């Protein structure tokens, strides 16, 4: 390990921020090539949210039915509602196969077919059974295997360190500043390259499947550095969130044949997607559910419908969906082998994020200019692989494949570039944040601000959106941002200060949410996960383009000049019907 261990100052060629699938896969790529890498993560690597992924990871192995990368590409392009960049998707579907065999060779325990191959199951929006899986703990086994491989290659981990600021000057990344959660204290990480792999940001919503850690930290940090985010209006709502909790019951349940029913006991998907039924993509199913609920056909008129697995039989449920069974039983005392399970749409996946090109280099604008030395992969990034709507099982694959690609890109960069000097006062920004939260004179509590944000985001920027609601939310977010300046924390100590962590995270939620709202207001069409009741049609003529958004002194600045990369001869936009 070549990290210099001077206290509070570390020099290491590459800093990977985040130890989910994207971060670990990148770190492993570097370590295998004998490159110095330090992984900074605010939770222990095995606690990362990738471990929560249940259903599967996509690759057209064709182990159980005919399949091909071309088909995978078509499904992904269509699933993205034609907003996905097709060069990225093409690379993705081809590399996906390699990523899976590599995982298998690392020891990932995949479920198997009778003839001993990796088993594959159907998943929403995929036209062939393409989800490689390990029962319903796919993310868990992938994450653990990657972590173990990183141990094998002696990757250096900075566990429970949280990045508080990025060191970017003159469009060059020079490192990061991180807070040592366990002992307190800020550390400078001086590096040639930085990878932002901090995961999703579903925590802006009240009903969400995301973990507490999914607070979109790097999004806040990017905006703070006057850099843009891309396509933030696209947030996927998953149709099978456990009622009131929001935690996820895997789509694998529907992959295995579960029904969704309304108060009348009707499989209502027949009215919305007669061909694919429950296996239509998530945005379609979530909207169908919400429509049923809004029209009083939720169970007993309430805010939920049923996920019914009973006909699958206890044996299949226990074998293929043990986690689904366990979650329903433990959280709401419902035995899904005997009773239907109450569900509602839950904020699940963030398609937008830190813009990057196909090599995972972070973009400075819509013209393709980059920030030297800064990279991003996984759910924090917007490449744009998923466009306006991600297909299930494509995100684990996206995180792993582009994590590997990021590792490779950074490895090349490191070899041909020297260290750039640090800014003159590298700790200034991070220190400012801490002192304002610890020593400020205000009286606001981060918990109540967060609750207000989440409640209102779920209400006003949920499955269905309209201008009036979004304008209300725009007002609200301004108010919350103002009040945030007066937040003060109870805990003034250095050691494991959870209060400080949460207050810092709220700051990030509040900035990127503003961008999310403005992006949604501006996009006057319905595409993929972004659905406006006042503009219910997709509008290719005006809106076949990405959103780039900056936070400025005077509000959010938007630029819609970034074109979607489309292979017009092969995958021209068509109506998206299922």
């Amino acid at each position: 390990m070549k990290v210099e261990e001077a206290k509070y100052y570390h020099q290491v060629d590459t800093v990977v921020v985040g130890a989910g699938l994207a971060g670990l896969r990148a770190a492993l790529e570097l370590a295998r090539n004998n490159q110095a890498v330090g992984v900074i993560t605010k939770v222990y690597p095995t606690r990362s949210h990738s471990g929560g992924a249940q259903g599967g990871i996509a690759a057209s192995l064709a182990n159980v039915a005919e399949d091909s990368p071309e088909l995978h590409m078509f499904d992904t392009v269509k699933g993205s509602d034609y907003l996905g960049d097709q060069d990225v998707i093409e690379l993705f579907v081809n590399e996906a196969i390699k990523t899976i065999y590599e995982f298998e060779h690392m020891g990932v325990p995949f479920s198997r077919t009778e003839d001993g191959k990796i088993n594959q199951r159907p998943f929403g929006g995929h036209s062939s059974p393409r989800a490689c899986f390990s029962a319903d703990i796919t993310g868990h086994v992938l994450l653990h295997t990657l972590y173990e491989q990183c141990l094998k290659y002696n990757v250096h981990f900075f566990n429970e360190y949280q990045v508080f600021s990025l060191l970017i000057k003159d469009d060059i990344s020079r490192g990061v500043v991180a807070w040592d959660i366990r002992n307190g204290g800020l550390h400078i990480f001086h590096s040639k390259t930085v990878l932002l792999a901090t995961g999703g940001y579903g925590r802006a919503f009240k009903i969400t499947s995301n973990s507490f850690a999914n607070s979109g930290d790097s999004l806040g940090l990017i905006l703070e550095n006057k850099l843009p985010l891309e396509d933030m209006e696209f947030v996927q709502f998953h149709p099978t969130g456990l009622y009131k909790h929001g935690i996820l019951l895997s789509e694998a349940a529907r992959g295995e044949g579960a029904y969704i029913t309304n108060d009348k006991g009707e499989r209502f998907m027949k009215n919305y997607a007669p061909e694919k039924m429950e296996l239509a993509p998530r945005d379609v199913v979530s909207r169908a559910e919400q429509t049923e609920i809004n029209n009083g056909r939720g169970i007993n008129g309430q805010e939920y419908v049923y996920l019914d697995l009973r006909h699958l039989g206890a044996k299949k449920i226990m074998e293929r969906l043990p986690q689904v069974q366990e979650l329903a039983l433990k959280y709401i005392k419902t035995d899904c082998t005997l009773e239907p399970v109450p569900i509602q749409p839950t904020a699940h996946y963030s398609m937008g994020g830190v813009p990057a090109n196909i090599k995972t280099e972070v973009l400075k604008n819509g013209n393709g200019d980059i920030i030297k030395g800064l990279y991003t992969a996984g759910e924090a990034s917007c490449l744009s692989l998923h466009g306006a709507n991600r297909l299930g099982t494509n995100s684990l694959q996206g995180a792993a494949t582009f994590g590997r690609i990021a590792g490779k890109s950074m490895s090349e960069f490191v070899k041909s570039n020297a260290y750039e000097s640090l800014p003159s006062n590298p700790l200034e920004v991070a220190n400012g944040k801490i002192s304002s939260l610890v020593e400020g004179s205000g009286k606001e509590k981060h918990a109540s601000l967060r609750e207000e944000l989440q409640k209102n985001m779920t209400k006003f920027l949920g499955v269905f959106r309209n201008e009036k609601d979004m304008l209300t939310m725009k007002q609200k977010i301004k108010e919350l941002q103002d009040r945030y300046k007066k937040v003060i924390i109870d805990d003034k100590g250095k050691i494991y200060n959870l209060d400080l962590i949460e207050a810092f995270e709220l700051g990030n939620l509040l900035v990127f949410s503003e961008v999310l709202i403005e992006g949604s207001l501006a996009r006057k069409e319905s595409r993929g996960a972004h659905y406006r009741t006042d503009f219910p049609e997709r509008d290719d003529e005006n809106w076949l383009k990405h959103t780039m958004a900056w936070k400025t002194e005077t509000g959010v600045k938007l630029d819609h000049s970034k074109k979607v990369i489309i292979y017009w001869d092969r995958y021209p936009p068509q109506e998206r019907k299922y």
Partner: protein
Amino acid sequence: MAKQKIKLKILRYTPEKQKKPYWSTYQLEVDQDSTVLDVLNEIHWNIDGSLSYRRSCRSAICGSCALKVNGQNILACETPIHKFKGKKLKIEPLPGFPIIKDLVVDMDNFFEKLRQIKPFLILKKPLPDKEFTQSPEQFSEIRESILCILCGACTSSCPSLWSNKDYLGPASLLKAYRFIFDSRDDGAMERIDMINDRNGIWRCHTIFNCMEACPKNINITEYISKLKVKIVENSI
């Protein structure tokens, strides 16, 4: 949702301020179907922000929030308070680990022991172009062992470990099982050398505490026994 008044005790400790941990009492009103984590959040968010604990996924898969409540090691996020019906909750950090602050413990040693058993596939054969074949039966040998979320509840409840800190402990042994019994692995001998050590598998006296503590209901003792048999077979 019906509300309920509860009274509870939490073991608190801030090393910057106190020499040793002390009990603090709280009274609050929560939903009847609250989990232990909901209660901790409620205290941290609305009563005393200085209370620290670990949590992340809320769905019993990240393994962050293992704690001891009324003498039992549990995951805070999946355990409803009504499980301890009528009793006053007594919440403390996982025993057997040094306390960092309040309910947060130092698990470095736990993860270090995991590293010791070489927790990765060891291959001595060439890689196939596609996947290694493994039958569903072979997969089912390890199916339960891969459920482990490294929460530490088992290791923390093991009396053998309390008396000898260097003992590998149930979670690492389970991990050793997971690899030794993976049909693809060629590293059994290396790992057996490792666990057949003074501080290894023979420190397990089949007390079953680990199994009771495991939130994933993994039959840890059975797998440790299978490992013992394997070692004996190999040494003849």
